[in-house]
């Protein structure tokens, strides 16, 4: 409006006023005045006063309060920034005002609509009317491209209607709803191809729509909007809900629907929705969203199936006239095909019409749909659903008498149910499968399925009986092929519950009778007569000899003989939990020759259970390779009637060949039907053994003691030999062993299983050479046990038993030796040869007796007086009573007297303790050079009161030589002169006095003896040794002296010694040796003295602990090494004087040594 002010005032204002009035008349408040300005006008813009421009005028005139209702648009046709700006401002304003206007108007509309809705409880209210109102709002939104909002309107309508239906169901009926309850006359499905189905809309407007019409229309609108919103999958999901819902609502409202009409409607609708979705999506999208559409497919399949059944299209014969009438009615309800689909070849309408037209066409469509559904389910991993549809398909095939096609579906489904352990579906599917297999003539499979069904607790008693009868009928048929067997697994027929051996250790000797009692739990509902029950037995000869012995068998099979078999966990799938526990056993393999351990390890006995494939559980259903084992060894039980439930069946067998028998298979035959348990698990074995007669003799105690009666156990294992009357054991007597006959000894007879069968008195006859023991009568494979007392005469141990001639000379060594040989008893072996009645060879048995005592003797001297000490040490575990000890001189010299110093005649000697006996030797004339003695002492076990026989005393013989004292050695230590006591570190004098006590005796006659002028002299070597390092010997510690052989000849030796410690110190030892010249002494100019002189080394250089002789020898060798000129020359020898010949009168004396004054350090050594 670009005019002058004048023009404005003249005309425009009036026009505007008129326009405003028109607006007001229409009560419209939405308006906008636009003023278009020119550039020309602008030039004098500056001159113009405010409030004089046209804009201002118009604002003044019209926009008294709404100044924003006037917009200036400057130079709209020019291309300048100003123009751009003004355009923008204009459009923004326009948009704002438009929105405001819409908001206001829609708000008002919604308010009105809400008011209308609130009136819904009023009697005259009509849903259809309201529907139209709200739909108008939806249209508005749709036009404004606000599809979301539009959809909300329809959803609200949907919810409102649903609520009414629910309320109606609850008895709260609205009048208008009865209109929707009119019978369904048309079922032509959803129409989704047009954005608005005006036909249906009009019928709603006219209030003539049926429930299906309303729902169809509503959904078609929702579908359209959802597709605008790019949400096709929601369409599919909502469609399924809608269809379900409609069916429910019709039911709820009790609308009368002709049979099949709804099926038609649902089928058509499903296909329509699917086609609609397919029409707006590409293939890839559809494929990736099968999960959303598959429900519709499945629903359509289901509906088509029920239509087929309804119209008689599934039966073998085809539809009858009634079916045809029904079909015609159904087709009539479809009406004519819609024009919009008339040209499409695959329209739902055409499909349905065609499917219902003939049996063949139906089959084709149904199979197409089913296969498509199964495929879709499978492709998205819904295996269970696929199987379920497959089962429907199988049912269809069965109806069509095509069992070969049904089988695969049934098997597939069954496998699935079995794998997951669904009992009822298993039973149901199996029943269908049985029928299928029967039609197919798969006899074995059918019988197997029948047996499974007959044992199925989910079936009724009648059904089970029926299937059981099927098996029995087949079994009783005369077979055209007599050798033909139908092998079925046993589990379904009967279960092996437990097995019991008699004898219970399952070990039987050759010829013995073994009973095996099994408990079979029959699963059949009726008693079944079984011709025979056979157990196949695998026989193996044990390679390992050790295992075959009766002892081993009886020892290792101590079970109670009952083996329980785990029940079949058929209804459970194989899950981790139901796996059996590991059965681990230790395994030892011994070498056959010497029974030593070859290998050892752990074996798992049920590996085959644990490592089998998981699918194998379902292989029970298959006519699996249950192989019948034909073995030479069978246990058989004929004509058994298995009652339902537990049955006891007993097998008896007589053992023939020795070896191990393993029960492998269990078969029950009913006619030509064999029920086979292919593996008996856990492994059941019995052993048959054959045994040679054997005799064992073993002591009852750990070891037999000599000298007292000891019990010995005789065990006769009869083996296959039967002991007859008069059979006896002939024992050839050993000289030193007596068999004591006791009147009351009895023999026990046991069976091999250690059950006592009898006992009998034992008759023993003894002659001097042979003892005969007559055995009691005993059958084969029994054990005779008896005990005998034997007595080994206590012989004195051979003199080889070391006799301590050294006496007190070397107490340390003696002690050590004792410890070494300390606790082992001297043993004697007695061999007894026994002739057994079953063998021509005699058995030699060695019995080892231990001498319970160990005896040592010692010669003790006191000056010239002599004592003999005998020590008896009890090494056994028993306590004894010693009595009547004697020591006699066997050489019978009257001159010698043995005076016992023992006071008690009876003396107990406890286990591991010793008793000492002492006698003094007395003689009147010259003592003999040697003395032969025999010690004897009576003994008896302290515990036993009275023995039947008198026991021989224990004797000990020994010889004492050179017991007469020839030399007396006396040593003394004197403090240095002028001192009262010896001090450490100061030299003291040691005086050794060697005195000859007797004149020339026989014992002196040796190489060292030299004779000159009736005077005899011998060479002795003395040596001072301090074993405890108390003294330092200064200067020569040893020397050779020539000793006149005459009584009271004395030799005195002086030496310097220095005490190293303070205190009471024992004197150093003085040892005396006989100094023997070399055999060829004359050839040596070597002076022994000089040799000794040369040996300037002191004794302390040598280890004191070393045995003297060796120290001397080593010294000799040192010498020979250092003085080469003597090399190869013969050396004189040293010989220790026998202990009895030297008496050290100063042994045991001590000397007090006080510490030196300047000694601030006191060494204390504790040893």
């Amino acid at each position: 409006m670009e005019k002058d002010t004048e023009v404005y005032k003249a005309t425009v204002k009036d026009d505007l006023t008129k326009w405003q009035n028109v607006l007001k008349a229409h009560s419209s408040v939405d308006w906008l005045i636009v003023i278009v300005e020119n550039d020309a006008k602008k030039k004098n813009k500056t001159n113009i006063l405010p409030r004089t421009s046209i804009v201002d005028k118009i604002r003044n005139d019209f926009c008294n309060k709404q100044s924003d209702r006037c917009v200036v648009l400057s130079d709209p046709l020019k291309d300048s920034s100003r123009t751009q700006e003004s355009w923008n401002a204009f459009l923004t304003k326009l948009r704002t005002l438009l929105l405001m206007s819409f908001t206001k108007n829609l708000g008002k509309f919604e308010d009105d609509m809400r008011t209308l809705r609130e009136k819904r409880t009023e009697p005259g209210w009509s849903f259809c009317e309201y529907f139209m109102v709200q739909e108008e709002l939806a249209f508005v939104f749709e036009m404004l491209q606000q599809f979301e909002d539009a959809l909300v309107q329809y959803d609200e309508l949907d919810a409102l209607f649903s609520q009414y239906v629910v309320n109606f169901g609850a008895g709260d009926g609205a009048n208008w709803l009865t209109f929707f309850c009119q019978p369904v006359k048309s079922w032509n499905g959803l129409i989704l191809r047009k954005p608005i189905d005006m036909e249906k809309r009009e019928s709603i407007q006219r209030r003539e729509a049926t429930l299906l019409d309303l729902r169809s229309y509503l959904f078609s609108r929702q579908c359209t909007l959802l597709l605008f919103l790019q949400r096709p999958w929601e369409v599919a999901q909502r469609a399924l809900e809608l269809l379900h819902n409609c069916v429910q609502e019709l039911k709820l409202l009790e609308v009368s629907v002709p049979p099949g009409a709804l099926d038609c409607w649902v089928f058509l609708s499903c296909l329509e929705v699917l086609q609609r979705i397919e029409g707006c999506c590409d293939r890839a999208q559809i494929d990736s969203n099968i999960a959303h559409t598959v429900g519709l497919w499945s629903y359509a399949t289901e509906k088509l199936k029920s239509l087929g059944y309804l119209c008689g299209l599934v039966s073998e014969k085809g539809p009858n006239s009634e079916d045809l009438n029904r079909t015609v009615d159904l087709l009539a309800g479809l009406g004519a095909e819609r024009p919009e689909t008339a040209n499409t070849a695959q329209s739902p309408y055409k499909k349905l019409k065609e499917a219902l037209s003939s049996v063949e066409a139906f089959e084709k469509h149904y199979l197409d749909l089913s296969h498509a559904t199964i495929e879709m389910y499978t492709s998205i991993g819904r295996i269970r659903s696929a199987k379920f549809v497959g089962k429907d398909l199988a049912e269809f095939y069965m109806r069509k008498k095509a069992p070969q096609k049904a089988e695969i579906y049934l098997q597939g489904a069954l496998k699935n149910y079995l794998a997951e352990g669904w009992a009822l579906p298993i039973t149901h599917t199996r029943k269908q499968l049985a029928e299928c297999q029967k039609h197919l003539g798969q006899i074995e499979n059918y019988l197997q399925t029948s047996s499974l069904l007959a044992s199925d607790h989910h079936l009724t008693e009648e059904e089970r009986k029926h299937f059981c009868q099927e098996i029995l009928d087949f079994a009783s048929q005369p077979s055209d092929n007599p050798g033909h067997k139908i092998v079925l697994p046993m589990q379904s027929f009967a279960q092996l519950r437990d097995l019991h051996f008699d004898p219970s250790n399952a070990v039987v000797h050759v010829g013995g009778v073994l009973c095996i009692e099994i408990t079979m739990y029959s699963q059949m509902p009726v008693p079944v007569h079984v011709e025979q029950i056979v157990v196949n037995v695998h026989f193996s000869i044990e390679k390992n000899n050790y295992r075959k012995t009766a002892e081993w068998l009886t020892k290792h099979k101590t079970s109670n003989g009952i083996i329980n078999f785990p029940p079949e966990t058929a209804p459970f799938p194989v899950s981790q939990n139901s796996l059996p526990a590991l059965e681990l056993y230790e395994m030892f393999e011994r070498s056959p020759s010497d029974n030593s351990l070859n290998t050892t390890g752990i074996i798992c006995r049920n590996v085959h259970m644990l490592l089998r494939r998981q699918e194998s559980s379902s292989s029970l259903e298959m006519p699996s390779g249950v192989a019948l084992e034909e073995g030479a060894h069978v246990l058989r039980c004929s004509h058994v009637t298995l009652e339902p439930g537990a049955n006891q069946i007993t097998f008896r067998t007589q053992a023939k060949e020795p070896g191990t028998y393993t029960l492998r298979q269990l078969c029950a035959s009913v006619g030509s039907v064999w029920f086979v348990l292919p593996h008996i698990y856990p492994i059941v074995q019995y052993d048959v053994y054959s045994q040679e007669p054997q005799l064992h003799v073993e002591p009852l105690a750990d070891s037999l003691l000599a000298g007292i009666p000891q019990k010995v156990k005789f065990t006769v294992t009869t083996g296959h030999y039967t002991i007859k009357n008069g059979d006896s054991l002939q024992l050839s007597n050993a000289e030193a062993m007596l068999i004591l006959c006791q009147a009351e000894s009895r023999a026990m007879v046991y069976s091999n299983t250690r059950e006592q069968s009898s006992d009998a008195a034992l008759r023993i006859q003894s002659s001097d050479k042979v003892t005969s023991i007559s055995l009691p009568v005993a059958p084969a494979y029994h054990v005779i046990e008896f005990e005998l007392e034997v007595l080994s005469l206590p012989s004195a141990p051979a003199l080889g038993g070391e006799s301590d001639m050294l006496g007190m000379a070397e107490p340390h060594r003696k002690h050590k030796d004792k410890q070494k040989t300390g606790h082992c008893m001297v043993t004697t072996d007695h061999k007894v040869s026994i002739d057994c009645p079953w063998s021509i060879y005699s058995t030699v048995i060695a019995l080892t007796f231990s001498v319970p005592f160990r005896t040592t003797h010692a010669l003790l001297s006191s000056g010239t007086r002599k004592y003999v000490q005998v020590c008896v040490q009890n090494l056994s575990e028993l306590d004894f009573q010693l009595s009547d000890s004697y020591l006699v001189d066997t050489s019978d010299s009257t001159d010698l007297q043995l005076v016992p110093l023992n006071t008690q005649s009876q003396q107990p000697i406890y286990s591991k303790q010793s008793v000492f006996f002492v006698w003094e030797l007395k003689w009147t004339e010259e003592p003999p050079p040697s003395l032969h003695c025999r010690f004897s002492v009576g003994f008896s076990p302290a515990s036993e009161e009275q023995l039947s026989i008198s026991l021989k005393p224990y004797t000990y013989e020994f010889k004492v030589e050179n017991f007469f004292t020839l030399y007396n050695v006396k040593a003394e230590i004197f403090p240095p002169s002028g001192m009262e006591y010896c001090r450490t570190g100061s030299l003291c004098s040691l005086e050794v006095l060697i005195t000859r006590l007797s004149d020339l005796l026989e014992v002196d006659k040796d190489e060292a003896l030299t004779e000159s002028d009736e005077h005899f002299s011998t060479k002795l070597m003395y040596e001072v040794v301090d074993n405890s390092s108390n003294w330092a010997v200064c200067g020569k510690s040893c020397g050779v002296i020539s000793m006149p052989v005459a009584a009271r000849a004395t030799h005195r030796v002086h030496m310097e010694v220095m005490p190293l410690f303070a205190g009471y110190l024992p004197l150093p030892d003085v040892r005396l040796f006989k100094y023997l010249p070399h055999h060829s002494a004359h050839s040596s100019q070597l002076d022994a003295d000089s040799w000794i002189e040369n040996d300037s080394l002191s004794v302390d250089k040598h280890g004191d602990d070393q045995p003297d002789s060796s120290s001397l020898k080593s010294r000799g060798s040192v010498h020979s090494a250092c003085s080469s000129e003597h090399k190869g020359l013969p050396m004189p020898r040293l010989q220790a004087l026998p202990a009895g010949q030297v008496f050290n009168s100063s042994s045991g004396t001590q000397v007090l040594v006080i510490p030196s004054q300047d000694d601030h350090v006191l060494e204390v050594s504790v040893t």
Partner: protein
Amino acid sequence: MAVCIAVIAKENYPLYIRSTPTENELKFHYMVHTSLDVVDEKISAMGKALVDQRELYLGLLYPTEDYKVYGYVTNSKVKFVMVVDSSNTALRDNEIRSMFRKLHNSYTDVMCNPFYNPGDRIQSRWALLPVSASSPGGPYFLCPIQSRWALLLCPIQSRAFDNMVTSMMIQVC
């Protein structure tokens, strides 16, 4: 009011399944079994998120014409499936949720029974009695040592569970 309630083990075999006696039991067995497809799908789809959120309720598994099948899965992957009549509009999501929660609690009680071996079928007295009477071993064989005690003690716990299920089937929430 549920028409069928099932407890299904992790390995997908039924631990307990009970339906209204008036209707065909077999149909529900098939239905529950088939619903496991969707349960599996939902569990694998939710995956870790499910564990984190501790949302055990799986919601509506799928509707059929006559029934609605709902699912619930415990942390140990034991599934509860409940079938509800479609016409029963009173049962909303919340009610179903609380029913599942109750069921879960009862199931936990059963698991607490020291005589119950996890993985065994939960036997109601109805299932147990005919079994013990007709076949001492039967399909639900109890090992000899346990059997006497099991017969005495098992029903106490499983009866509580059974009663709970019964109440859910009768009660109109």
